Every structure is written in C-alpha cells, then in structure tokens.
C-alpha cells in the first residue's frame, strides 16, 4: 500500500517536474532574448508580462515539488534531540495540518480565480492571440491543489510509518 502510494506520488511529481523544466527553459530563453533585443532597440511587448506570470507558474510547481520532497521552510530545529519514535508522528502532524490549511488557501484562491474569470479581463495580447487574466491566476488554485495533494500523500506515508506498516 505504502509503495503504491509512493509510486503514484512519484508519477505526479515527474509530470510536475517535466512541466517545470519546460517552463524554466522558456523563461531563460525569453529573458535572454529580451536582453539581446533591447540592445538593438527592439523588444517583445508582451515579454515582460509573460515572464512575470511564468515566475508564478514555476514558483507554484516548485512549491508542489517542495511539498513532495518535504523541503518547505519549517522550524525543524525544534526537533533536534527528540527521540526517533516521535518523528513519524511529528511528520504526520506537520503534513496533515499543512494539508488542511492549504485546503483553506485553495478555497480562497478558487474564489479569487472565479472572480477573475468572470471579469474577463485581458492580460496580454500576443500577436492576434488574447490571453485572459485568469490563465495567469489559474496557477494559484492549481498550485495550492498540488501542494495539498503532496501533503496528503506524505500524511499517508507518515501515518503508515507511525503505525509501523
């Protein structure tokens, strides 16, 4: 059971990782192209806006992977010197509480995203293509949903560890 959960989470993390690497490649290329173009007095009008929102997308995918690797900033220094048998329980508390709070943040971000979508605001025009503002703000609920999912996976893993299964 624990192995199956781990495999399922690893598949999700692999898909997130692949998307993250692709977005970072676009970001590095676009940012560098903008620098070169600027020195010739040129530039892509939409470049700056797209880059800023790409940071949000990559940031949230990175945050999802940080949850998968349990690498979010936390005050782990408080655990120094604690007996080993307590650690799975702390891990379970941290991930489960984290997932519950992230669910509240997900709900709040869904309200924000729905309002943004209903407004129909335009973010940027790339050639003839109009990109709506909600395409950018979708990163927030999606990001929180992924973070929460990984925390739930980790909670299940910690519970199995705590109960010795």
């Amino acid at each position, binding site marked *: 059971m624990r192995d199956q959960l781990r495999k399922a989470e690893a598949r999700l993390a692999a898909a997130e*990782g*692949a998307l*993250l*690497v692709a977005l*970072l*490649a676009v*970001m*590095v290329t676009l*940012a*560098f192209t*903008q*620098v070169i173009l*600027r020195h010739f007095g040129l530039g892509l009008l939409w470049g700056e806006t797209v*880059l*800023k*929102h790409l*940071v*949000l997308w*990559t*940031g*949230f*995918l*990175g*945050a*999802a*992977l*940080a*949850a998968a*690797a349990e*690498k*979010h*900033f*936390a*005050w*782990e*220094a*408080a*655990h*120094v010197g604690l007996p080993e048998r307590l650690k799975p329980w*702390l*891990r379970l*508390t*941290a991930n489960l*509480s*984290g997932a519950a*709070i*992230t669910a*509240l*943040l997900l*709900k*709040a*971000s869904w*309200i*924000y995203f729905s*309002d943004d979508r209903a407004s129909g605001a335009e973010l940027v025009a790339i050639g003839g293509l109009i990109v709506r503002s909600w395409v*950018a*703000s979708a990163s*927030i609920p999606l*990001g929180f949903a992924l*973070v929460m999912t990984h925390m739930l996976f980790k909670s299940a893993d910690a519970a199995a560890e705590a109960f010795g299964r």
Partner: protein
Amino acid sequence: MTLLALAGLAAFALAGVPVFALMGALALYLFHGVGIQSSAVIIEFSRLASLPSLIAVPLFTFAGYLLAESRAPQRLVTLAEASLGWLPGGVAVACLCACALFTAFTGASGVTIIALGGLIFPLLRRQGYPEGFCLGLITTTGSLGLMFPPSLPIILYALVGKISIDTLFAAALVPGLLLLAALSVYAFIVAKRANVKPIPFSWEALRGAARAAAWEIPLPLIVIGGIYGGFFTASEAAAVMAFYVMVAEVLIYKDVPWRKLPEVARESMILVGAILIVLGCALGLTSYMIDQEIPGRIFTFLHEHVHSPWGFLALLNVFLLIVNMVEIFSAIVIVVPIIAPVAALYGIDAVHLGALFLLNLEIGYMTPPLGLNLFLASRRFNKPLPALYLAVFPFWILLVGALMVVTYCPGLSLWLPRLLKLQ
C-alpha cells in the same frame, strides 16, 4: 481568542508545519476576524507577479545551482590559492575570498559548506592551520558572500523592503568587504601564531589556474559590471548569467551533462517555490498589518521605552540575531514588512536598515545553538555541535564587532549608493 490562535500556531510551528501554511492560516484568521473575504489573502498573492525584478529570483537561483553542480568550486579554490597563497595567512584569505564569491553566486543556501568545505578543510590543515580555526573559518564563510551581489537574500530583501536591488547590492558591498578584511586580519594573526608558511608564488600555477577558470573569471565582471556600468538591470543580469552559466558549464566545460540539467533545474525551482509561497502568504499578512496600522502601534509601544534610534537599533540587532538563527528566508519575508516601517518612524534610512539586516542574517547563519551553518558543518565534517560552537566563537565575536560598526556608522552602507548616485 487571538491568544489561543497564536498558541495553536506556535504548537503547529514546533510540530514542523511549513512556514507558508502558518502564515497563510494566520492571514486567513485575521482577515476573517475583521469580516474581509478570504480571497483578500490571494489578491496579495497575485501581486507577486507585479513585483519588479521578481524574475531575478528563479534565474539567479538556477545559475547558482548549476555552478554548484559543476567543478567551478575546485577551479575557484585553485585560482584563489595561486593568486593569494603567497601572502602571510594567504591560503586562509584565499579560502575566504573563494567562499565569499561562491556563496554570492549560489544564493547563500548553505551549499558553500557542502561544495567547498571538503576542498578547503584539508587544504588549510595541510598548511598547518589549527583544526578549530579551519572548522570555524568554513562554518563562518558558508554565509560570507551573502553581502555581495548577486546574492539571493539581497534580492529578496529588496523585493520585500521595496528598495531598488542595485542600491541594496551597493549598500551591502562595503560592510561585506569590511567583514572580509576583519576575517583576513584574523587569519593573518592565526597563521603567524601557528607558524604557517606561505606557498611560494608561481606564475606557472597562476596561469594554469586562470586558464582553467577562463570562462568563470568574467562572470563577476559581467554581472556586477553589467549592472553598475548601466548595461543591464538586475533582472537582465540574471537572464545573462543563467544563459552564460548554462553555456559555460554544460557546453564548454561539460561539467554538467545534458541529462543532469532537468534535475538541477528541478532542485533549484524547489527552493524558488518554497521562497515564493512564503513570500505570497507574507504579502497577505503584511497587507492586514498595514491596514490595522500594526507597525505604528509597535512604534508607539517601543517609543515609550526606547527613545533613540541607536537604542532601537541595538534592540533590533539582538532580536534579529535570534530570529535569523532560525530560518533566514522566512525571516526576511516575515520580519522586514513589520520592522521597516517602525525603523522609518525612528528616522533610520531604509537602505542602511537593509545592510544591517543582511549582516544580521549572515551572523545568524553561524550563531549557536541553531545557526544553519553549524548543522551543515557538523554533518559535513562529522564533528559534534559543541566542538563547532567553540570553533566559531572567535569568528562570531569578530562579526558581531563588525555588526556594531556597520550599525552605528550608517555612512559605511550609504557611501557607495550615494557615490553611484543610486540614492
């Protein structure tokens, strides 16, 4: 009720709940308390995208991770040794400089001790430096480059504190050099006492080391020279550095194979994601605090007990040393929005505050008992923590002395930004 909520959050924090969740929960609770919809927290989150130079964070971090993955650390240490090793105490000074440069370019995430520690420790020991000094030096220098451009904490502070990145780079530089000079003098004294012989200078060794690092030597010039020569903005410099490092380490040196590149990208973006999600939640919390005039209330309370800006700064230094010892990136995003307006009410220059905050961060990294560098060095060199506490003590005293100087001589941090007409 609020006290109960805070006690609950403290319990969660001790259990290891991520900082972003703690801050998000607090922001949601506080907004709910004043009858504002929860999406207000997320509105602030979405403002992340409007922060100027935000793009510099992922690009510098990615470039730093690539450098750390390559053999740049070896080349850097060899070059520093060949160019400075002939001076009295020169090998230790070379190590200080190599660590400072490496930390600045790799984001000050603790990677220096892991990447350079294994090279520097045996090198210093072979020279005859005492073990305690070697351990103390490496533990301290793991964060020495935090004061030099393009270090990630400077960029993050500038984003959160709403200061221009170029100005803060310039403001932190002189205090950083002061630290480097103070530590170099200490290294010289220890070398003299331990009768450490300098390495004879060799043009051949210097030429060889320079040739080996030929593609990395221009990097500081491109980034720092590019920004202050007016060629690039900080975010453009990040784009150039990311591209340049990728070409140098993957295509020219071939230190990082193509197949390893996605892994480095993923690892670097994990740090970026962890920073941005805390930053987003902190923005939500900050907006509540500003709305409720909390910095003003803190100022009124403090001003009843502490009247002078100097007294406030002394109090601030003690507070920051404790806070920064725990977690530096979170410390920036949580503490800066609260203390910056309070400091402004005391008449303290925002740029000066930034420089001394960063210096505090640097010291916090190696402050016993919880500084991150102590744990990293303990793991890296397999030494018990108390041995490291002893080893870093003289360095800590030196750095705290430098902190006093930087705190009470604002001119040190403000001189260069004014000279460059950035302020």
